[in-house]
């Protein structure tokens, strides 16, 4: 078990290396000059060259990459071109906000999705199944930025119960465990939970149905187990796949959602990324994408390890 975990963790290194190269190159391949955003259109060639040298953009690509990598390994992702603040600190702050939003959305989406999926799988073909499956289908089909706007119209504009945009106590950016902070979370978290809810409900529905169709379920009944005890076996059999799907969904959510964070002006990584794109903030973009990509890689490894702990057949190879 530990050996397997260690082996999987070792695999992260080459992947992380590849990710860093892609992140770095992606933005150099993209058209447009990053300096154009901060320099006036009539800046002299001399000034442009000066700025280019300041950001190291005049050096060969390989050197630029190595220097960037070396600094990145020390936690220094450079200064934001737009704000002049350290990229690392900006990203970390935004990540905490994204995590909070994702955490709440996960809680709602996973529990609701698991419940719906289980009921649908157990009572396949009944009205319960049709209702649960319809909700799940709606969840994956409805565009969530649109749903977000609809929720804002209902609960903020019409009913005036919840704030439409912003985050933190009275929008100041601070965090607290009280209603003045949490009320900002409700609408974006609800909006965000809809897609994972649908995906997880559908996954678990088919998993449960698949397990129930297997011979051993009948064998369990034949040895006298009550339905509740049989259910335990069904859950244990469905769990490895369900967890890997949940892990990926959690990864998506933790990475922040550009659309939802933009609709609700939630100060997370998605919001940060969106601003960085519009201001052509090269170091900010590189840093954010790198950290989000690495985060995904690590998330995948964790899912693999947890999965192997639950399903004994996986460790065999």
């Amino acid at each position, binding site marked *: 078990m530990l050996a397997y975990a260690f082996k999987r963790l070792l695999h992260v290194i080459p992947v992380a290396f590849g990710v860093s190269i892609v992140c770095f190159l992606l933005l150099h391949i993209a058209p447009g000059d990053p300096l154009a955003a901060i320099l006036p259109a009539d800046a002299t060639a001399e000034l442009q060259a000066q700025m280019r040298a300041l950001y190291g953009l005049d050096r060969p690509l390989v050197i630029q990459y190595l220097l960037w990598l070396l600094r990145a390994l020390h936690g220094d992702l450079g200064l934001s071109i737009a704000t002049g603040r350290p990229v690392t600190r900006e990203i970390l702050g935004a990540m905490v906000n994204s995590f909070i939003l994702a955490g709440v959305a996960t809680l709602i989406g996973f529990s609701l999705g698991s419940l719906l999926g289980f009921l649908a799988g157990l009572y396949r073909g009944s009205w319960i199944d049709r209702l649960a499956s319809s909700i799940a289908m709606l969840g994956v089909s409805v565009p969530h930025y649109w749903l977000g706007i609809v929720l804002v119209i209902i609960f903020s504009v019409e009913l005036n119960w919840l704030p439409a945009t912003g985050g933190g106590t009275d929008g100041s950016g601070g965090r607290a465990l009280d209603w003045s902070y949490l009320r900002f979370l409700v609408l974006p978290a609800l909006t965000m939970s809809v897609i994972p809810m649908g995906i997880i409900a559908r996954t678990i529905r088919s998993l449960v149905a698949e397990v129930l169709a297997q011979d051993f379920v009948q064998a369990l009944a034949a*040895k006298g187990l009550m339905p509740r005890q049989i259910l335990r076996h069904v859950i244990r059999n469905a769990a490895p796949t369900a967890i890997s799907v949940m892990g990926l969904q959690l990864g998506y959510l933790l990475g922040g959602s550009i659309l939802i964070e933009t609709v609700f002006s939630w100060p997370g990584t998605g919001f940060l990324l969106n601003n960085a794109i519009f201001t052509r903030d090269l170091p900010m973009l590189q840093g954010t994408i790198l950290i989000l990509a690495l985060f995904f890689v690590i998330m995948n490894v964790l899912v693999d390890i947890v999965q192997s702990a639950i399903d004994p057949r996986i460790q065999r190879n």
Partner: protein
Amino acid sequence: MQTPPAIIDIRNLAVTFRGGSRKVRAVNGVDLTVDRGEVLALLGESGSGKSVTLRSLLRLHPKGTLIEGEIKVAGQDVMRLGRRALADLRGGTVSMIFQEPRLALDPVYRVGDQIVETIRRHMPVSRSEARARALRLFEDVRIPSPESRLGNYPHEMSGGMLQRSMIAMALACDPAILLADEPTTALDATVQIQILLLLRELQTRRGLAVVFVTHDIGVAAQVADKVAVMYAGRIVESGHIADVIHNPRHPYTQGLLDARVELAQGSSRLRTIEGAPPDLSALPPGCAFAPRCGRVAETCRTVVPELHSGSTSVACFEPLRG
């Protein structure tokens, strides 16, 4: 002195599957009795209703299946048992082994834990007592290094060993009746013989009543005291195994005996029964075997023959050997 009542007593059993658009009558009026310590082989080809009859003893059918008739097992009326009482019967008084042990065991639980689970479901014992009992069972079914094998997952065992584990699990709570649904069909020929011998040995030692479903008349001859031959949901011939094999009276039984591979070794071709089993949702009005039968008479096509007793009981208007 009165003879003790049979441990299994089935009267006029009919099972109808209602899934899908058509009703399928898989079992159609079956009477069966099995005494304590007796082994009955249910013989027939796929779709003859032998497995369905077997599963009826535990009411192990998909939801919506209609079961009619009387089923008495070890003094209990199976048709009238509530959910809890039925679950107590399953695995406690009557246990079952399956055709594919690899599919019949939960792949993500250790084999030992699955046996312990069964024991603790039916007996008020501690985990360690159940564990010790599981170890003794593994020794009984002669699994080598039983201690460590208990900790194996199903995918870590061979087919023969899995079937031994399955047998150990079935015997875990000292049942009076063992139901075996083609338990050796999925195994290699050599392993098959070992499992049959093991079953026969355990059956004798524990005085088990066994219902053994098989399509292989050779296997039936090795394990059974009595045999009931099924065709299209009915019993067409039943009696002592030696009588049925040496003096078959139903043309279908004769056909099964002729179709054995062992007999074909001398001659060039295997003798088979012409045609295919009938569609259970559209049975012919008379004897279901009539369209394939060489001795068919006019009445066979219109009237269903009753089971008549003789040296063996047979349901046929034109039986062989009177």
